[in-house]
């Protein structure tokens, strides 16, 4: 059984159909979700992570339908995400951003109201995540004063802090310089090896092709192709969809 199945999902914004009958699955892999602007990739992410309820269709996670759950409940099931337009907690330090993620199990409980968050164990976990994402030098920096590449890593560290089984990355390489992109690719591979399943939206084709084991292509709200990177690169529909946009 795949970890995540999207079953015939359609979504309308007013009179505009953003997704048409989209079905896909994600398994123990790095799955790439690519497509031209306005293809509906972020809409699909918003549906999987609970920020939107699909007009039609189901999202099945570990065998259970989850499409009606709000985002803060989805995340408790182990689906974490980052945002295309970065949203670190701007009024907190990098370390506090990660701690905020570590708190995920507490927020819905009464002891969340009374238990202090900065315990030795939590600070230790946070340090570990900061090292993993190479952020240890920024621990006490306010998150809103950092370059975009680092803010993206803060979001990844925060998402990892909830101990996800499935990680949704929305254009993690956008705005990064070449060196950062390479480091990001290594980080994603590393996370995958640690058993985290990843779906990533990507605009940078080369980045997606080199990193993903399987790719799903969306265009105008529909899946037009899926398969291994090599197949996708040769697919005429895909080439047309991208050329048509230019």
């Amino acid at each position, binding site marked *: 059984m795949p970890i995540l199945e999207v079953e015939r999902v359609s979504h309308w914004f007013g009179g505009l159909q953003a997704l048409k009958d989209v079905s896909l699955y994600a398994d123990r892999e790095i799955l790439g979700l690519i497509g031209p602007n306005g293809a509906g990739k972020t809409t699909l992410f918003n549906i999987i*992570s*609970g*920020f939107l309820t699909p007009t039609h269709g189901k999202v099945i996670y570990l065998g259970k339908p989850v499409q009606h759950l*709000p*985002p*803060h409940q989805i*995340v*408790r099931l182990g689906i*974490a*995400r980052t*945002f295309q337009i970065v*949203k*670190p*907690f*701007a*009024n*907190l*330090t990098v370390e*506090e951003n990660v*701690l*905020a*993620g570590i*708190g*995920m*199990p*507490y*927020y*819905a409980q009464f*002891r*969340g*109201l*009374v*238990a*202090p*968050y*900065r315990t030795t164990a939590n600070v230790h976990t946070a340090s570990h995540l900061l090292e993993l994402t190479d952020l240890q030098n920024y621990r*006490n*920096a*306010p*998150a*809103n*004063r950092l370059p975009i590449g680092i803010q993206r890593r803060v979001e990844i560290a*925060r*998402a990892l*802090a*909830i101990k996800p089984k499935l990680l949704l990355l929305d254009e993690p390489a956008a705005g990064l310089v070449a060196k950062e992109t390479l480091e990001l690719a290594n980080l994603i591979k590393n996370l995958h090896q640690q058993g985290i399943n990843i779906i990533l939206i990507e605009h940078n084709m080369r980045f997606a092709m080199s990193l993903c084991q399987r790719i799903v292509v969306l265009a105008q709200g529909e899946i037009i192709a899926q398969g291994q990177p090599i197949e996708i690169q040769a697919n005429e529909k895909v080439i047309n969809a991208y050329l048509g946009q230019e």
Partner: protein
Amino acid sequence: MSTGYLLTIFTFIAIYISLALSLNILVGFAGQISLGQAAFFGIGAYTSAVLAIRYSLPFTIDFISAILITGFVGLFLGLPSLRVRHDFLVLATMGINFVVISVFKYVDFFGGAMGLVNIPAPVLFGISFRGGVPYFILSSIYALLTLGLCWYISKTWSGLAFQTIRSDEDAAASVGVSSARYKIYAFGISAAIAGGAGSLYAHFIGSVFPDTFAFVESIAILSMVIFGGVGTLRGPIIGAIILRLTPELLRFISDYRFTLYGALLVLMMLFQPMGILGNGSWLWQKLHPNNRDVANTPQMEVK
């Protein structure tokens, strides 16, 4: 100035420190701007007054009931915050303030426009706390307890959860924070503290009138929080002290004290928008030249 007069001012300052700290939980911690805090202040005062006058209950019960009932009403009156944000919330809370006051004014049970008078002085451990030093100590203890509670909240997961919804509700949801739940918590806690302050006020003055808790009072409380430095613990305290003292200190030009009070607010916002002791303010940076605590600086952005 007589000692009695000074003690009255200091007692008021202690009560307003609690009020400013209570509003700071909403505005500074959870980012929910409210212009209705005086309504909670008033609900606490009226709860206490009604219980003391109509049911002759002792101070301890009045006081605890005021905290609990106001907290409960706060949970309920916080509901608009789930639907509206920013300026709309400011206006909704302002509306709540007007409606609450008109209930006090037009329902006979609450004494109408004549208010409720002859609220007995509190008796604790057999000691009567009518005015003077004992009452000042009583209200100072309450202000200290409030400060302790605010400090403790800022160290807990709920304190962190408040910070996340203040920053970005979507990002907060992405780490499992239900912004609805925490906004309601913030309103409940904030209202409960303000309710306790109201009870202390009612027993101190001995009478309550609807207009004491009108919209202008909400304005005054919010001004204290912003003037001192929103989001910090020291800010609302210094804000309450300065803004309560200013009109008193300016008595020698008594005719113009509110003109100057208003001008002070305007000048402060023009030159020190972070408040007098807020993070990033001139004075706080002078006092803490090496402080890297810039993270809590409210964001300079327009949404």
